[in-house]
């Protein structure tokens, strides 16, 4: 199934990037994304791209998997680039390259388009590094950690975290289920590949109805199982795998801070 190999599916490997605490990785990713938006100069771009390559190298994830993530967003890349080319107003007449009447193409527009495309590529690639090296559950744990302070103002942090964890846990299960249903319907003559758009949309009914029924059944079973084990959120729950910061993690934070300072200095 190609759904499985969409952007940022976890890639199991043994590497420093995989071992890092998921909270640290989340902070690193957010820092990178924010900082990358400040970059203006060519030198700055080289620097952030270099940092990305270091991260990719350390993660031991094959380049092929990372590029696959980019393939999923190429439409977005082109769209942003085109918008920037056509709708960046020229600064002065020297900047203007071509006047199409409805839009003006300028040198600054082309530069802007290129910058945005590179930025987006960097962002997507770096964020996919997060999901490629972190299991969904570890990621949910990290998000829970950062949401926890919100519990004080009445935000249901534990519940939201549990919902996230369950949702993530069931994605592969439901994909498997869907795979099976598609095959079963194909075996009794269904056709999902040919016909008009309308016909193809209609062809989804025999997949979606059984899929929803099975999802509801699973949800029901899970709720019963959780009740049977006395699940409740009004008390603090302990974890089977609690997140622990190691020296590596502190080093990573230090490097990230250093990186952010450097980028802001170079721009």
């Amino acid at each position, binding site marked *: 199934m190609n759904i499985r190999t969409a952007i940022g599916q976890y890639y199991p490997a043994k590497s420093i990037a995989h071992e890092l605490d998921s909270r640290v990785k989340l902070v690193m990713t957010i820092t990178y994304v924010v900082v990358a938006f400040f970059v203006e100069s060519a030198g700055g771009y080289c620097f952030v791209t270099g940092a990305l390559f270091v991260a990719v190298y350390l993660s031991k994830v094959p380049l092929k998997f990372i590029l696959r993530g980019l393939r999923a967003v190429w439409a977005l890349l082109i769209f942003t680039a085109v918008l920037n080319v056509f709708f960046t107003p020229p600064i002065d007449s020297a900047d203007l390259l071509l006047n199409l009447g409805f839009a003006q193409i300028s040198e600054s527009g082309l530069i802007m388009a290129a910058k945005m495309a590179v930025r987006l590529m960097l962002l997507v690639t770096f964020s996919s590094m997060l999901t490629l090296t972190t299991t969904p559950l570890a990621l949910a744990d990290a998000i829970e950690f950062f949401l926890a302070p919100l519990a004080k103002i009445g935000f249901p942090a534990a519940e939201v975290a549990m919902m996230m964890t369950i949702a993530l846990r069931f994605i592969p299960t439901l994909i498997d289920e869907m795979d099976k249903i598609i095959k*079963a*319907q194909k*075996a*009794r003559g269904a056709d999902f590949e040919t016909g008009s758009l309308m016909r193809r949309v209609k062809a989804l009914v025999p997949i979606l109805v*059984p899929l929803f*029924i*099975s999802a509801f059944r699973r949800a029901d079973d899970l709720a019963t199982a959780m009740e049977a084990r006395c699940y409740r959120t009004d008390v603090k729950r302990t974890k089977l795998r609690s997140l622990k910061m190691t020296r590596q993690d502190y080093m990573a934070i230090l490097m990230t801070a250093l990186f952010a300072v450097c980028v802001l200095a170079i721009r």
Partner: protein
Amino acid sequence: MSIELRNVSYVYNSGTSFEKTALRDINIKIEPGEFVGIIGHTGSGKSTLIQHFNALLPPTEGLVLLNGEDINADKNRLKDVRRRVGLVFQYPEHQLFEVSVYKDVAFGLKLMSLEHLEADRRVRAALSAVGICEDYYEKSPFELSGGEKRRVAIAGVLAMEPEILILDEPTAGLDPRGRDEILSQIKHMREELKITVILVSHSMEDVARLVDRVFVLNNGEIALSGTVGEVFSRAGELEAMGLSAPQITYLMKELAASGFNVRENIYTVEEAAKELLSLWESREKQGYSNFTKR
């Protein structure tokens, strides 16, 4: 219609780090009208194997031949292949979706652009073949019992009038009554429709009772094959693969070992009953008043 797998191998996620060989050099030939069983441990490749018969999975290597023709050769004919080779998956009731039993069974036919009368005839024939009577036609498939749902789902495949019917664990998760119903319907169906049936099962009892020939799959390879007697007489090898002979075979072996004059090569309860009865009768003739050891 004969179906043949020739040197079929299948590799999941070929070319990635998740690569896994599921089938290795499989050779199977099934003649028209045969009733064949496929047994194997969980993860032995049974489900992967049967999806080759109707081209849901194309082999990584090798050929799948339907009457001598490669079924994967022409993409446009896949639908035709899937109509001729009906595959009923495990828990087929999970594929039900229509508002009524009748409509659900007619689902595949609707896409075949059949004449209305012909489609109606086929739906009725399929439902009667699995023993679902007319009172059920307008019921929602979701209000039926587990065994009934399953029979309706099987009818959905039968309505396509396949020449080969493949059933993957048709009795899984059913209570003994639902199980007996399904099995006797399968037997009845085969005799009436004269189609080739391939039965995948965990239950040695079911296989011994129904099929003519057995293939044993182990780690993606055909480990044993032959008639029920040939395969189940090798209980030791089966046990090494995490399988077994039917329970009744073990009972008869123990009886023979403890001195009763019974055959050991018995694989069904019916055969065993006959054997014990004839032993009983022969002893009565000989003047024994009760059923004791020699």
